[in-house]
């Protein structure tokens, strides 16, 4: 999860209640924020693009601008140190994007502290509209939705500028799934002309414009959509979101000036500067509810951060419908206090539930029915079902205040039969002085086959996206793990006697998941005087504990020394079955595992010993 630094000054200036530091962290944790702690960050400004960057005490100052790419090693003067800043650092709670920035977080805290509930945001109508090209809804150009707003009377401070930039980045991560489902664009309205804008699909070489960070006065800096994907750093980064489509989305004003090519890059011409006063905002994406919610979160947080702004609606003209955004109509959800009481196990009534929900920012209406009508604030995106409001009740009540009780219904406890047999194995082998080890279930063909001189078979489970060459499959046997353990203990006293009980996996088309897991036991001894008879005695002792007698039948196996290897048969209830293999490990195998003392080992399948015989 990304970590965000919330400016303490900005946060606290928006709360009336005086909260000591420790208490603030505690309250935020009670609300579900994963607070890491307090820190001092150093703030720098890029004088090339006015980008604000922060570093923590352990980090080095930036060497390039993360927005415009200015190189401070070449031009050290471009990087200006602004100040030290106290922040509270926390991991983002992905489902509450309305708490990503100091403005939204303060709003939540004000509710929780009882200072206010369900803040309203006044919406003004305006002349602006965006017409949506029907081509964008076709599956081959899929990015059909757009929601827009205008924010007037903006006055940026260094704090709000930083907070808004961060918010945009974090919303891309949390709601936009890295811009795939939704992406945000912010523009200086003064640089745009007319009021009838267009959101349309263009061929990738149909048009040219100057992307953000390029020179408006240079003809060679005008790029086609295709060139942007190939050349512009953001284009290269997000290429995968567009390249498969024959046409790309584009937003332009009434005169055809290009605002952006969503979700990749804005145009340079409408770049926002600290002096911008009126802003045009767009969210494009693949789901209408999501672009609207994202817009609501963004716009209301901006309104919290910069007081005195005026929010103006934009009409979105879809091919078959019209709508005005932002739309702050509350989602209406019925909540039953008695249901909440039953689920949570605390004393609740209508009044208490109303109070708790109001502290979580909801508007609640009471009537004669048993249910409450809850109006969810427009910036909340996480209420899918009434149960989500029950959680809000629990949070407002405080998890730390819950009584700790047990379910009153008695049930009978029982462990798996398999575990009883595993315990039996452990008791027998530890009694013989062996030590249990655990090795990773993930292994490789090299360890499982090549190093043992065994041919690779077709029935092991292969990982599609392994993370290392040592972990490309699920183990097919335990022995390599034991040999690896010896290798890791080459400096330890000899002899060493170890065993492992665990699962292996095998492809089996008859099974629902295409493979099945089998329980195995392997034991091994390393030391100068280790031989076959010693390990056979151990294996025999173990089988004895299962009520079975051992029979060893000569066999050949490339992992073991010829003539010193046998199949292990178990005779149980008069029935003879093959359960495993036993022998002295082949010197070539020892060499492959970098071992310089003899090893004898056995590995057996546990299931035949524990399954009821028929």
């Amino acid at each position, binding site marked *: 999860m990304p970590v965000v630094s919330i400016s303490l000054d900005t946060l606290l200036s928006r709360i009336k209640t005086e909260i000591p530091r420790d208490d603030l962290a505690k309250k935020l944790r009670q609300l*579900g924020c994963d607070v890491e702690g307090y820190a001092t960050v150093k703030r720098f400004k890029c004088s090339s693009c006015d980008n604000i960057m922060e570093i923590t005490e*352990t980090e*080095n100052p930036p060497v390039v601008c993360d927005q415009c790419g200015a190189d401070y090693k070449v031009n050290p003067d471009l990087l200006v140190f602004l100040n030290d800043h106290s922040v509270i650092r926390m991991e983002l709670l*992905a*489902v509450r994007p309305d708490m990503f920035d100091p403005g939204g977080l303060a709003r939540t805290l004000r509710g929780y502290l009882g200072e206010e509930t369900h803040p309203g945001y006044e919406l003004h109508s305006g002349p602006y509209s965006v017409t949506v090209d029907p081509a964008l809804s076709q599956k081959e150009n899929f990015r059909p939705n757009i929601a827009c707003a205008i924010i007037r009377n903006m006055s940026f401070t260094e704090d709000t500028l930083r907070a808004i930039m961060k918010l945009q980045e974090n919303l891309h991560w949390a709601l936009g799934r890295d811009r795939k*489902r939704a992406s945000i664009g912010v523009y200086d309205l003064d640089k745009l002309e007319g009021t009838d804008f267009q959101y349309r699909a263009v061929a990738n070489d149909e048009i040219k414009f100057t992307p953000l960070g390029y020179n408006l006065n240079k003809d060679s800096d005008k790029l086609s959509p295709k060139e942007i994907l190939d050349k512009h750093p953001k284009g290269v980064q997000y290429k995968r979101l567009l390249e498969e489509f024959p046409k790309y989305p584009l937003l332009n004003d009434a005169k055809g000036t290009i605002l952006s090519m969503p979700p990749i890059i804005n145009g340079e011409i409408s770049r926002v500067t600290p002096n911008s006063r009126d802003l045009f905002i767009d969210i494009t994406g693949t789901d209408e*509810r999501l672009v609207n919610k994202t817009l609501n979160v963004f716009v209301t947080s901006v309104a919290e951060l910069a007081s005195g702004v005026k929010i103006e609606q934009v009409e979105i003209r879809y091919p078959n419908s019209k709508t005005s955004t932002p739309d702050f109509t509350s989602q209406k959800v019925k909540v039953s206090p008695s249901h909440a009481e039953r689920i949570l*196990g605390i004393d609740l009534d209508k009044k208490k539930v109303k109070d708790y929900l109001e502290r979580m920012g909801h508007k609640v209406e009471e009537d004669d029915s048993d249910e409450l009508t809850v109006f969810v604030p427009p910036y909340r995106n996480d209420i*899918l*079902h*009434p*149960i989500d409001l029950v*959680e809000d009740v629990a*949070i407002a009540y405080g*998890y*730390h205040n*819950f009584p*700790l*009780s*047990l*379910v*009153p*219904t008695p*049930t009978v*406890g*029982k*462990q*798996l039969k*398999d*575990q009883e047999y595993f315990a039996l194995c*452990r008791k027998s082998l*530890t009694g013989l*002085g*062996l030590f*249990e*080890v*655990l*090795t*990773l279930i*993930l292994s490789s063909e090299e360890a499982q086959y090549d190093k043992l001189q065994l041919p690779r078979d077709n029935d*092991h*489970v292969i*990982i*599609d*996206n*392994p*993370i290392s060459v040592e972990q490309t499959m*699920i183990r097919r046997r335990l022995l390599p793990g034991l040999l*690896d353990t010896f290798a*890791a203990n080459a400096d330890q*006293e000899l002899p*060493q*006697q170890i065993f492992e009980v665990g699962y292996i996996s095998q492809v089996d*088309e008859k*099974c*629902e*998941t*295409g*493979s099945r*897991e089998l329980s195995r036991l392997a034991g091994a001894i390393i030391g100068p005087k280790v031989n076959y008879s010693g390990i056979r005695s151990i294996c025999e002792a173990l089988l004895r504990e299962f009520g079975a007698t051992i029979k060893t039948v000569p066999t050949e196996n490339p992992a073991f020394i010829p003539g010193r290897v046998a199949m292990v048969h178990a005779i149980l209830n008069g029935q003879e079955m093959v359960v495993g293999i036993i022998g002295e490990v082949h010197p070539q195998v020892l060499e492959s595992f970098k071992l310089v003392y003899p090893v004898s080992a056995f590995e057996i399948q546990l299931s035949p010993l524990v399954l009821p015989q028929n």
Partner: protein
Amino acid sequence: MGEKQLVPEMDFQVLTQLQKTEEPISIPDLAEKAGVDQSKASAVCLYRADLGEIEVQENVESEWKLGKKAKALPGKSLPERDIIEALNKMGGNAEIPKVAETTGLENKVIGQSLRWLEQKKWAQKDGKTLKLLPNGQSALSNQYDDEKLIKYLIEHGNATNPDLEAQGINIKTACDLLNGRNFIEEKTRKTRIVCLTPKGRELVNQGLEVRQELNQLTTEMLRSGEWRNATFRPYDVTVPGDPVYSGKDHPLVSIFDQTRRVFVELGFEETESPFVESSFWDFDALFQPQDHPARDMQDTFYIKRPNTCRLPDGNLVDNIGRVHENGGDTGSIGWRYLWDKEQAKKPVLRTHTTAASVRALASNPKPPRKVFCIGPVFRRETVDYKHLPVFHQVEGIIIDEKATFANLLGVLSAFYKKMGFDRFDFRPAFFPYTEPSVEIFVWSEKKKDWIEMGGAGIFRPEVTEPLGCTTPVLAWGLGLERLAMFRYELANITHLYRARINWLKETPLCR
């Protein structure tokens, strides 16, 4: 003058030899001269010392040598020093392959050095880049004690404490810094110097005579009763024996067992399910949308062979698909996207044991039931001291008409109390399949901080209702390696899976 003293043969040899040797003598030298076994000479000396006839002086000396891993040292300096010097040359930070090139160190050695660079706060890894920290900067002109010690040993082969003190090396600091690296080895040598006391000399001067003594009690002596006339040669009962260790379960397995016992005591029945699992049970049945980041190839292991799973028969699959698309009949608005059945068939290595819980729930949703599962889960994480791609969880569910969120917090606190923790904290959290959701923290007195142990919640109606369950289902998944690291004070999680035999031997069963 009294009469001659009767003494055992061994005592006769030792005392007579000591009489001949005027100067104090070490026990090995004495044994050699007297022609007796060293341990026996030692036993005699200690016995006679108790009688006040021999004076024993003990000298303990430490001797330092290069340890087993020192062979791997590339030069006379520690690799982390080579690295910071290289970093300094390269302007304070550089990508790791560049560092390898400049230092000439293998990538593996650089990888191993990260931990020490971090511990000494010399440099920090940030992505692929190593950054020199202020501490590292100042270390450039200042050798630490561990380095001085290594250098001395490389040059001189071995060293005693006075040698090192003479060099101004703080031995304790050096040892602390080198702890766990096996670059050095300490051997303590105890030597005993002995001589006759005046009382002993008097005894010897009186004249000694050998008295026959017995070493071993035999069956014959017992049968014949001859033992009644025998004297047994005394042993030095203070001499330590060779250490032996009882065979033991793996410490993590002890934690699994204890966990199992706790849940069985609380009335839970154990279940299991495959760890090669279908996306359907691991994600879809848990209302995890198909574009959820946790389902990414980045985070989850997908399986190439077998390449598909069978989905359950009947309406279950369609019901779950509808819940994703529009909430189905659950009263939810769903995730609002086109659910793809094919994606649900993809096999994965299960990312949580919740897959086992939801299978148990689907197989029998009828309350009351309490079910738990202990098993491995997989996340696509690079191995480091805190992370492994495999770890174990204990997962549990309670299906009960009367189950409440308060019961959930109650059963979790009961578990951690039984596992030996007395302070815990519950905080709101988010999981796609539970609501309300909670994260459990326990207090670490050592770290003076709360440590996250796992997540829990009440299954969402979007999870339970398609499975035919209308009662509340309390659910949790708690990490067990974390408990083990806590209990056994492990600094590195890989110790559990590539265990040192001596750790297995020496970890006491009782905790």
